[in-house]
């Protein structure tokens, strides 16, 4: 369970407030206009930014002051999700052990993950030798092996074409079920949200609304969402 307790985030003179709880196993889409603070919110949850006030709690435990690497979180960014100088195996392996000293079981585990995302033959390649879709799959395989209960996606597939993006989102949905984790994803496309997010929050005008079931929300959008969707 992720709790954002009276969060007030100030960045470049712009303020964002969030105060809600997300139940475990939920997939939350953060939707809203660009510049509204969607990525900023993820950065606070991940530990890259400090809120001015309020707390971030995971399973009731305060994680506001933990460094990013010690939070129960894996995250994918818009770009630079892979180290270009490391092989596919190394990139994924870092998700298991940051010193890359993997034992036999861990190596087998890594191999399974690679197979799971359909890249079994690509273990020795470097990201530069892979297509955009394949690179995304490598990053997802790492999310899989990380087994962190909270997954943050900051539009990692925005550079992919619609079909490929949908493949990825479907894969994410499947993986999240396997991990049994909680997910937050930034999106500005309603279809993305409708596809894999069971709940959605609207980020606009300095606040993050509490998560509402996605289907219900889009059927009967509140004003902030109507403004964003232009309907």
């Amino acid at each position, binding site marked *: 369970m992720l709790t954002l307790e009276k969060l007030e985030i100030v960045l470049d003179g712009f303020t964002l407030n969030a105060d809600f709880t997300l139940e475990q196993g939920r997939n939350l889409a953060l939707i809203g206009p660009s510049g509204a603070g969607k990525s900023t919110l993820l950065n606070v949850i*991940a*530990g*890259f930014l400090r809120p001015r006030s309020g707390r971030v709690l995971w399973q009731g435990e305060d994680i506001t002051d933990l*460094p*990013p*690497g*010690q939070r129960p*979180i*894996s*995250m994918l*960014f818009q770009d*630079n*999700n*892979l*180290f*270009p*100088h*490391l092989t596919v195996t*190394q990139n994924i392996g*870092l*998700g298991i052990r*940051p*010193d*890359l000293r993997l034992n036999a079981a861990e190596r087998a585990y890594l191999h399974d993950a690679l197979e799971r995302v359909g890249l079994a033959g690509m273990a020795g390649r*470097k*990201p*530069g030798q892979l297509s955009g879709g394949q690179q995304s799959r490598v990053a997802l395989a790492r999310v899989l092996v*990380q087994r962190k209960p909270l997954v943050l996606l900051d539009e990692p597939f925005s550079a992919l074409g619609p079909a490929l993006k949908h493949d990825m989102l479907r894969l994410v949905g499947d993986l999240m079920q396997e991990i049994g984790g909680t997910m937050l994803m930034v999106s500005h496309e309603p279809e993305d949200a409708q596809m894999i997010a069971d709940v959605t929050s609207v980020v606009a005008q300095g606040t993050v609304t509490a998560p509402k079931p996605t289907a219900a929300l889009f059927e009967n959008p509140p004003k902030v969402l109507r403004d964003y969707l232009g309907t």
Partner: protein
Amino acid sequence: MIRGGPGYAAAALVLLFIFGPLIVVFVRAGGGTLPGPADWAAVRFSITQATLSALFSVILAVPVARALARRQFPGRSLLITLLGAPFILPVIVAVLGLLAVFGRSGVLNSVLIWAGLPPVQIYGLHGVVLAHVFFNLPLATRILLQAWQQIPAERFRLAASLNMTAGQVMRRLELPMLRTTLPGAFIVIFAICLSSFTVALTLGGGPKATTVELAIYQAFRFDFDLGRAAVLAVIQTLLAGIVALVALKYSRGEGFGAGLDRVVRRWDAQSAGLRITDTAVMILTALFLLLPLLLVVINGIAGWAKMPDQVFTALRVSLVISLVSTAVALALALPIALAALRRGWIEVIGLLGIVSSPLVLGTGLFLIVYPFADPARLAFAVTGLVNALTALPFVLRVLIPSLRASEKNFGRLADVLGLTGWARLRFLLLPRARRALGFSAGLAAAFSMGDLGVITLFADPSRATLPLQMYRLMGAFRMEAAAGAGLLLLVFSLGLFWMFDKLGRGDVDA
């Protein structure tokens, strides 16, 4: 990010190494002695010549770097490598090479006289500046070229789609870049020229061209006034430190590291006029920098057979010292560069190594060491350490921007993966800094090879370095053999540079 602790420790070590000896000299002298009017004249001359030298170096580097940034031609990368040669050449070799071109009976005057024109006179302030530009134009060019290539290609495409002329591109894209880059380039060169001595005196044409370092020399060996020597050394260090802090304020951390192979396609620079200008700039630069080198090579070949065996023994000594210095320079630079990611001003400490007076530094070290050990036994260590300190600013200038870029692009990913400490170094920072490390190791090695770097008080007569042996050959009338040794030095300095640079390029990744 990585903890700054080891970096602060390394910076403290550098400070201790630079200021410790200075303090010891003060203590021994029983306090400082105020410099006389002649000393102040030397301070003024040092500032004047260093300012002019740095100014001309960076201004002339602008057209050269621009031409290299927007033109692709066969041999371009070879030219870039060769242009670096004056920078790593031992001073005496370079001065004799310069005189062979610009001297009274040099190539230039021979041509002028043949053409019925009056000869030119190289000696004077303009000669000092000319020589310093010869040494530092390549460095300035590299710094600028690197910055030029950091302007994203998309901006030039945008400029082309807006149909901007070369002049408009200069004003909108290139001038803003130059404004942040030139101060950094200026200060490094200013610092190098500030402590110039041999070049300034030889080409300055007489005692008018007395620099602070020569005034220190006089205070030390003529008047044996340690207090005055130490005060002058402090003045020299402070001057460079102040200018460095000011320049750092106005510049961002541009380096001059790797990746100079890329040429951005430029639509604004296709006119015949600009092509001719760029070609002329490159030919003139190549002539200016390479002709003296060529004469060094020709003289060296003539003297090659006359080189005695001792030269090759000295070559081995120099190679070992050079490799040790390189290792020390990198070992100091890496933690300092990591700490500089948090606190940029730390880099200024690295700069102090090239402005500290070798004479005062050596004297202080000697006073520290002498009561406990035979200085000659430490000759090796001291020479290696001093050479490493001299190379430190350049290594830092290359390394810091590279590390900064890695942190900018991949820092968050590393954070979220929990890559800290050694793992972050090993899997992120070091592999991505490979080119920068190779390039800066090459610089440090070549530097150390070519530096006379003899702190006489620590000289070990039985283990002469190649530059010292070359100097000894000259001192024993054997100028031709010395020229051969100069060529040997040039070949190995460039060879070491090329080898390390190549190692850094190793296997190419994205």
